[in-house]
């Protein structure tokens, strides 16, 4: 693989207001490779939108450098207090190669679906005939050919977002920035949009930057994840790494919202079985990634250590073709037996969290 297609280096974005200054993005560096679906997760106000708007310079950073496709869009030299940026004209041309979709679709209300897509083609080199064909092709791609002459107000949320995807793809971009594109949609429509994005990523090799506050969306399609809080990236890695071994509290929170495990723990903890845990019992949570599940590990606990494992809840996610699982289990046996069982589990890279001890 060559250089990253997007590389943001030491980006600061500070808003100076009358009474206060807001450091929306603080020294963030991020490298996104060609073909990545890079999820950026964080609560509202974390600075996600501000950060991605820096990519196409809708937001000029206060400091840092922005390099897209090996071309430096913006660079600031702190010491010399000098900023260099590409020309307005070049920027407009480059922006056409960076599609962007938004939470509220941001379609032109006074233009039909066709006109909305054609608007993005205004400055393309295609002739009128070719533009027409291109718009038709894009609408077919997002499955909206039959809505071509309607206005946005006549469409559902999912349809509007598909129009905006068609518009974003009009100039055959290599990058698509999705800023909370599914946050205003119902779960079913969200899945349709996410699978469309996944398809675009796989079939066109589109690099996608996926901003969201829903871990669920990231889990569906991203291969890399960064977690943002207060203008900083607090944790990042491959989707599997993040899901399997989150280190930050916030990351854990996000993952739990995506797996519902927190709800399961609450419900199961209220069960008599757990409430009245015996002395020689331990209520634990096991988390594992990949092959571990292929082995009848749980069964081996009894065979090897005479520890019985009562599985109360199980959840397996397939992330990027790899199973990632969580089990809520009650282990019973003597102290020594349990100790041995736990150390075996740990040897098999199973994460163990003791939720309640019987002692």
């Amino acid at each position: 693989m060559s250089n990253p297609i997007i590389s943001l280096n030491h980006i600061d974005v500070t808003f100076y207001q009358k009474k206060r200054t807001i450091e929306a993005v603080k020294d963030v560096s991020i490298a996104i490779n060609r073909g990545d679906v890079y999820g950026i997760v964080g609560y509202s106000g974390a600075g996600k939108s501000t950060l991605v708007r820096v990519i196409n310079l809708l937001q000029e950073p206060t400091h840092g450098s922005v390099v897209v496709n090996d071309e430096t869009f913006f660079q600031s030299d702190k010491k010399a207090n000098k900023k260099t940026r590409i020309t307005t004209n070049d920027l407009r041309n480059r922006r056409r190669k960076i599609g962007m979709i938004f939470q509220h679709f941001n379609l032109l209300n006074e233009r039909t679906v066709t006109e909305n897509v054609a608007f993005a083609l205004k400055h393309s080199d295609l002739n009128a005939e070719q533009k027409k064909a291109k718009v038709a092709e894009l609408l077919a791609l997002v499955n909206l050919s039959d809505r071509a002459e309607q206005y946005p107000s006549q469409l559902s949320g999912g349809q509007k977002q598909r129009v905006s995807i068609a518009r974003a793809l009009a100039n055959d971009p290599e990058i698509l920035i999705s800023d909370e594109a599914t946050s205003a949609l119902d779960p079913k429509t969200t899945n349709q949009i996410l699978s469309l994005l996944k398809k675009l990523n796989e079939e066109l090799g589109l690099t996608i930057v996926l901003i969201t506050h829903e871990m669920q969306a990231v889990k569906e399609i991203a291969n890399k994840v960064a977690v943002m809080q207060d203008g900083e990236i607090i944790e990042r890695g491959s989707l599997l790494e993040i899901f399997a071994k989150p280190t930050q509290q916030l990351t854990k929170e996000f993952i739990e919202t995506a797996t519902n495990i927190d709800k399961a723990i609450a419900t199961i903890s209220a069960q008599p079985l757990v409430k009245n845990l015996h002395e020689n019992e331990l209520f634990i949570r096991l988390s594992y990634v990949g092959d571990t599940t292929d082995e009848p590990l749980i069964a081996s606990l009894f065979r090897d250590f005479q520890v019985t494992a009562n599985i109360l809840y199980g959840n397996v996610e397939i992330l990027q073709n790899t199973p990632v699982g969580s089990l809520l289990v009650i282990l019973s046996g003597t102290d020594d037996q349990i100790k041995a069982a736990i150390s075996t589990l740990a040897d098999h890279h199973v994460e163990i969290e003791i939720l309640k001890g019987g002692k």
Partner: protein
Amino acid sequence: MTQWFSDTFPNVVYQGWTGDTGWWTSIVQTLYMTFWSAIFGGLLGLIFGIGLIITAPNGIAPNKWTFWIFDKVVSIFRAVPFIILLAFIAPFTKLVVGTQIGTTAALVPLALGVFPFYARQIQVALSEVDSGIVEAAQAVGASFWDIVFGVYLREGRSEIARVSTVTLISLIGLTAMAGAIGAGGLGNMAIAYGYNRFATDTTLVATLLVLIFVLVVQLIGDYLAKKLSHK
């Protein structure tokens, strides 16, 4: 019928149809003043209104000084009562149209009187265009003029139709005062030949005609505002 009319409205009939003080003449004068000052004042107001939107701190071409100038010019012109403006800019009027009195001379103060009002109306209308739509346009590489014409004016067109209607109606009101510099028109008819001469019937008919104008403008404006909106 004709007999009844000339008995009931003797002064109306006395004014005649054509001639310097005729009804037709007054109607044409009002239409002429409204039309041309709407064109010139409208254009000026549109330029200032758009200027205020795009040079504002959150506009597409923020510029403190330009914004300040647009803003102050509009505020100052808005603050001057029309009847004073009429007298105050007489020398300027003479410079532009060669005379200080008459229907054409009235166009200058009318245009200058209506433009700041219209500029503010346009500013409000365009500020309702969602900034997200502007941003989406920028993201697809739209140029400055694409955004002015293709986004602001296009997206704001229904609101623009609405505020233009309001402005046109208030402009018809202003033309009534233009009589003060000999511009004629229906307002002048109502005051000079109606009210001042105790010719109530003349005042009544002139007022009625103005009302009809206003009503027609309102109806067309409402129709356009509705027709142009797909929100």
